[in-house]
């Protein structure tokens, strides 16, 4: 159990949020700019973890454990998502002999 004094000693909430925001932006940048599907998936993971950091940070500063439980839940979900995502990537690779997203434009109008 942490104390209020311990809180004061460490970095403030803003710092954590800033870290999460930076991570999130890196994730977005990755999603938008990488052409490799696996890399995009990794970037999505970064974004998901940025959210988790937020959850944990708020939980910590509010003194409510529900947030941390939620973060754990989210991590589990992310694992499932990665599983499905990688499966899709493999299927795409089999179908198209490549995982370059620029060539995946079947929706083009």
């Amino acid at each position, binding site marked *: 159990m942490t104390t209020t004094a311990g809180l004061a000693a460490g970095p403030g909430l803003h710092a954590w949020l800033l870290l999460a925001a930076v991570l999130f932006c890196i994730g977005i940048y990755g999603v938008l*700019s990488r052409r490799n599907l696996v890399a995009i998936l990794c970037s999505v993971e970064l974004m998901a973890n940025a959210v988790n950091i937020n959850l944990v940070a708020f939980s910590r500063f509010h003194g409510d454990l529900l947030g941390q439980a939620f973060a754990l839940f989210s991590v589990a979900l992310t694992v499932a998502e990665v599983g499905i995502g990688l499966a899709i990537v493999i299927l795409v690779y089999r179908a198209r002999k490549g995982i370059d997203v620029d060539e*995946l434009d079947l929706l083009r109008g």
Partner: protein
Amino acid sequence: MLILALTSLLAPLLCFALLAVVEPLRRRGRLAGRLSALVAVSSFAAAARVAWMVLVDGADPVTWTVHWLVHEGQGFAPVGIHIDGISASMLAVVTLVAACVQVYSLGYMADEPPAAQGRYFAWHSLFIVAMGLLVLAPDLLQLFLGWELVGLCSYLLIGFYWRKPSAGKAAVKAFWVTKFADMGLLLGIIALFGATGTMSWEHPPAGIWALVVPALLFVGVMGKSAQVPLHIWLPDAMEGPTPVSALLHAATMVAAGVFLVVRAYPLFEAAPAMLTFMAWLGAITALVAAVTAVVQDDIKKVLAYSTCSQLGYMVAALGSGHLMGGYFHLTTHAFFKALLFLGAGAAIHAVHSNSIFDMGGLWRKTPVGAALFIVGALALAGVPGFAGFFSKDLILEELLHAGHLGPLLLLVVSAGLTAFYMTRVVAIAFFGEPGARAAHAHEAPWIMLAPMALLGMLALVGGFGGGLLAEAWGQEYHFAVTPVGVVTTLFGLAGIGVGVVRYGTRTWTGLTLDGLRGFILSGPVDRFWDSAWRRGLLPVARMVGWFDRYVVDGLMNLVAVAVLKLGAGVRRLQTGRAQDYVFAVVVGALLFLAYGVVGG
């Protein structure tokens, strides 16, 4: 009397319906022809009885009408039968000539295929109905109905030999030209209705309409009665079988215009300027057509131009303010011109050619036909004693009284020319050198000669019927020798004399005027209308059609293409790449954020 008049109208109608619907009957051409001729004769009998009752017994005029149209619950536009002196006598003349021509046609058309004969007689029956409608009309609308229907019969009969390209051209030309003129007639009727609320000729409209209405009506007359410059269809109309030319394009249908003026005279009388115009136009037509007739080699063309010319006489006569002369000439002309055409038909039948030079010396081969033709020619030339003499004399007399000296002069000159060109035809075709084709010529059968003989008799004595005709107006008519008559007769005799000297005895052949001849034969009026058609209407139609296809429709297509292009533009936003969509989401989210920060 009403029943009789109706009979003379309905019998041919029934005959037409029978021939039109019952195909086996029509295909048996001779039977159809006999039926049709019988009906025509009975139609004449009924009409003659009506005319007798009105003109001799002095029966009162009868009118029976029903309302053809309706507005605001009120019937209007009466159609039916109106019998008075004018309509009764005209009906008798029309049915008489029609009966003669139909009987004659039984012989003339005998060599045609049976189905074609059936068609021919069906249309002839229809023509009698149409002409009856026109003549018995109680007001201008019904007159117009009949007027258009006779035009239709004319179109169909000119195009009787429809496989011949020239016949097809002539038929549509006749229809177009007369229909063009009919625009004026229809507009005149409508304007009359607009001004007076009726389509009756009894009440002239007031103000400017008093001039406009008759002027518009007269445009129709110019087309139908072949007045310059709308006469161009009549010579071409000779493509039809010769009996058709005799009935429609000489005796009756083309006279419908003159009849219209006679009928609607109260309207014309109210516009003195119109009368003067008619006198001049008629006289000019008479002269121009007479000059043109002189240079024709086709016997039917000569007669056609002569018809134009004589119609000019009638129109000019009506311009004098008197009705009797024009109407009298209409009747006598119907007899002798029909006779002339039937005679020409007999000659054509004999030599199978229209050219007077192919005929040559027919007198020896076909004496009866030639004699009858010559009777007609003498009547046309206005030789004293023949029918044409009396009516022509009366016309000139009336013009003198009205003081139209210019037209009078032109008509007197035309009388000389008329005599000249008829002498030319007679001299070349019936006397002169025997033509190449005349060798095997033989007399026409009696069924053709009998009606000609009847008409010939009328051409001889018809002039004495003037008194009877004058009854139609309750007037007296007595022939008197006058200076004008003497001068005209002298002109006529001179024309005959010159003709005999030049073409008969060939003692004088100088003065050929080849330049003038060439100019006339080139058809200046025809060329004018032709260029109006080629350089006027056709290019305009082409332009409009092009404009519609490529500009109006092009604009519609442009709208369609613009939408397509817009779609194509918008489509480019859909790259199909998930990253682009995410990018758009991010940008959108940032924009919302910015709005929250700045605007919120």
